[in-house]
């Protein structure tokens, strides 16, 4: 089969152009991998027919784990025998996606030996993705990965691999150590990550500031976004320098402030911090002059998800501000309560956000023993249909009514 070169006229079109070509990558792998060759053949057929040729899932994995491997089989195994199995392996990435060349080469060597040689760096949730291997290779891959210090990520109804932004490793805006927290939660929840026992997936994402570079507010069941409680730190000289270098501070900074809490008199920038919404715009525009305050922590939000099933949700506020310090006990305690309630009451394939929509945020807060605060809502209710739980009877005395 290595001697019969697959003809791929449609895919060849995608080798042209300036953007890096995935077809070139598959062809690179196909030089030595029969799997990658058959992948090209099957993909060319998909391009001709406008139809995918992968069968629905399939339960495969490594011993003792219920997640981390996505079974994948061609629906044309006779025509493309080398992709009759084409399983994905999710490997838990290191926090912040930092690597040494040595670690990457180790991963490549394992994958060269046991798979198609194709990867995603990285998958949508953050894992290293090894694309395409067969069932007999799964245990050997797992064994070699763990010897090299790597472990599988999540899949199915489990804790999905937590991910975080670059954080304090290379960003002046990080309001807490996202890398440390992602690592700590990942290690603390190893059992929940490898052995699916939930109604559906549960994702943690950690962003160091409200710019939210890992899209946690849109994509995670628990979103931990760095913020600060005190005043934005201002370096007056640096503000003046931005102005003298031609920045229109009124137009670029003050007029874009959503809280209208800034004033610029041509010499000095004043911020009424008690009205500041921590949106980051002014800091983004003048990183040399403005910095998040010193009393830092995070806003914790809950319940984001994509549309399936009951519609897309953005995460909403659970705690307006918490200090983020190891061992993150407040977060872990509330997560335990959330999982208890959701595992007990949640329906199959119901994300926590949908669960909250179904039972009501007020009832959910009761169940996890968190007090309601005004920061949790965009505005209070607009309808008068309150579910009061108690009422007085005729014979109750005025004393009791107090």
């Amino acid at each position, binding site marked *: 089969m290595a001697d019969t070169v697959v003809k791929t006229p*449609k*895919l060849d079109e995608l080798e042209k*152009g300036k*953007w*890096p070509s*995935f077809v*070139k*990558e*598959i062809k690179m*792998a196909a030089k030595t991998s029969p799997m990658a060759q058959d992948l090209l053949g099957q*993909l060319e057929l*998909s*391009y001709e027919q*406008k*139809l995918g040729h*992968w069968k629905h*899932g399939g339960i495969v994995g490594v011993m003792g784990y219920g997640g981390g491997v996505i079974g994948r089989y061609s629906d044309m195994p006779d025509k493309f025998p080398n992709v009759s199995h084409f399983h994905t392996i999710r490997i*838990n*990435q290191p*926090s912040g996606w*930092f690597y*040494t*060349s*040595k*670690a*990457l080469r180790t991963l490549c060597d394992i994958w060269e030996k046991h798979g198609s*040689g*194709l*990867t*995603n*760096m990285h998958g*949508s949730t953050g894992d290293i993705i090894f*694309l395409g291997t067969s069932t007999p290779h799964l*245990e050997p891959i797992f*064994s070699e990965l*763990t010897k090299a210090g790597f472990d599988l990520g999540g899949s199915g109804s489990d804790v999905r691999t937590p991910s975080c932004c670059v954080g304090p*490793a*290379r*960003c*002046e805006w990080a309001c807490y150590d996202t*890398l440390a927290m992602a*690592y700590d939660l990942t290690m603390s929840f190893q*059992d929940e990550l490898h052995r699916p026992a939930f109604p559906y997936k549960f994702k943690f994402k950690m962003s160091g500031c409200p710019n*939210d570079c890992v899209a946690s*507010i*849109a994509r995670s069941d628990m979103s931990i976004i760095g913020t600060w409680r005190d005043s934005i730190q201002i370096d007056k000289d640096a503000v003046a320098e931005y102005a003298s270098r031609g920045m229109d501070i009124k137009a*670029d900074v003050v007029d874009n402030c959503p809280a209208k809490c800034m004033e610029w008199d041509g010499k000095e920038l004043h911020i009424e911090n008690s009205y500041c919404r921590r949106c*980051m715009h002014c800091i983004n*525009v003048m*990183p040399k002059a403005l910095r998040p305050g010193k009393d830092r922590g995070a806003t914790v939000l809950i319940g984001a998800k*994509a*549309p*399936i*099933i*009951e*519609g*897309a949700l*953005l995460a909403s506020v659970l705690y307006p501000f918490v200090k983020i310090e190891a061992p993150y006990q407040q977060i872990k305690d509330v997560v335990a309560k959330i999982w208890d309630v959701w595992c007990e009451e949640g329906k*199959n*394939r119901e994300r926590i956000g949908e669960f909250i929509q179904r039972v009501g945020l007020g009832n959910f807060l009761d169940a996890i023993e968190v007090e309601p605060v005004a920061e949790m809502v965009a505005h209070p209710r607009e309808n008068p249909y309150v579910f009061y739980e108690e009422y007085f009877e005729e014979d109750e005395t005025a004393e009791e009514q107090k």
Partner: protein
Amino acid sequence: MPEVMQERLTDIGPPHYDKFLPPIVKENYGKWRYHEVIKPGVMVHVSETGKKLFTVRAASPRLISIEKIRNYADLADKYCDGYLRFTSRHNVEFLLTKEENIDPLIKDLRVLGHPVGGIQNSISSIVHTQGWIHCHSAATDASGIVKSVMDELVGYFETMVLPGKLRIALACCLNMCGAVHCSDIAILGIHRRPPKIDHENLHKTCEIPSVSASCPTAAIRPATVGGKPSVEVIEERCMFCANCYTVCPSMKLNDPLNDGVSIWVGGKVSNARHEPMFSKLAIPFLPNNPPRWPEVTDAVKGLVELWAKNARKYERMGEWINRIGWPKFFQMAGIEFQKEHIDDFKHAGLTYKRSTHLTF
């Protein structure tokens, strides 16, 4: 197998990130003072200690071979003492301590075919899913559209001429592994034909109550077909979410005659200025036209350029549309407003225009 079992390690988790941080990052961890963008794709972070860390960001197709990863490793060895990282949008970043290494590295990356850019007011790499390369439920390919669109837009990756950031994402079905629902421009694969039920096999592979329960509009009910237990679909209630297919392989929605692509605009994730927003439907349907999807490519390019021409400095797509109003957006974009644009799912009423704030 037995020798594998003997030393079987489990639940070890990922390697500690500390092992992979370059010395300059370890020394200045949490001490970064500010950063500046030097030129497209290149920035410098300056520490309180005065130390400078230069970052060069390069595009990647996300789907990369081990040969390419080894190329990256070689470049990291050559210029960065063996350290590198990846971003949340699949870019690769080289972390340099020597400013004089920036240009030679960029030159090497160009030879390798990887443009440098994606920082500040630019279009970064498209977050996307697997498509026909690896997914059973894909209504379109992912990598092919991304490649075709970015071939057109790469100029905006390599420069910083746009009014603000623009983030594009692609998901090949409504499961949205690429979580495209909060992107400036979202490209979404869609099905348009109710499931074709494999009555022969359904009872062997699926639990009928679970299939029934999986439908968010209660369009699926148990039925006996040809003497076999199966289900029937009330087709006018089907909104093509494919949740039934996810729980049951006998409910196939993929259909080359009807599958295609929709385009959504105006979402954002960042809290800067306006709060995070969902993307909204701009173009209900465009055909699957591989290998280059010209209809999709033209539509996306048109939207990018319309926004670039009309938005104010810093305004994201959604902020611009909020300012001018949706009717004006449709008019300027030359998109016909159709019934499909009007929400009819839960809370649809909240999306109706409930004021006289209209432009003419």
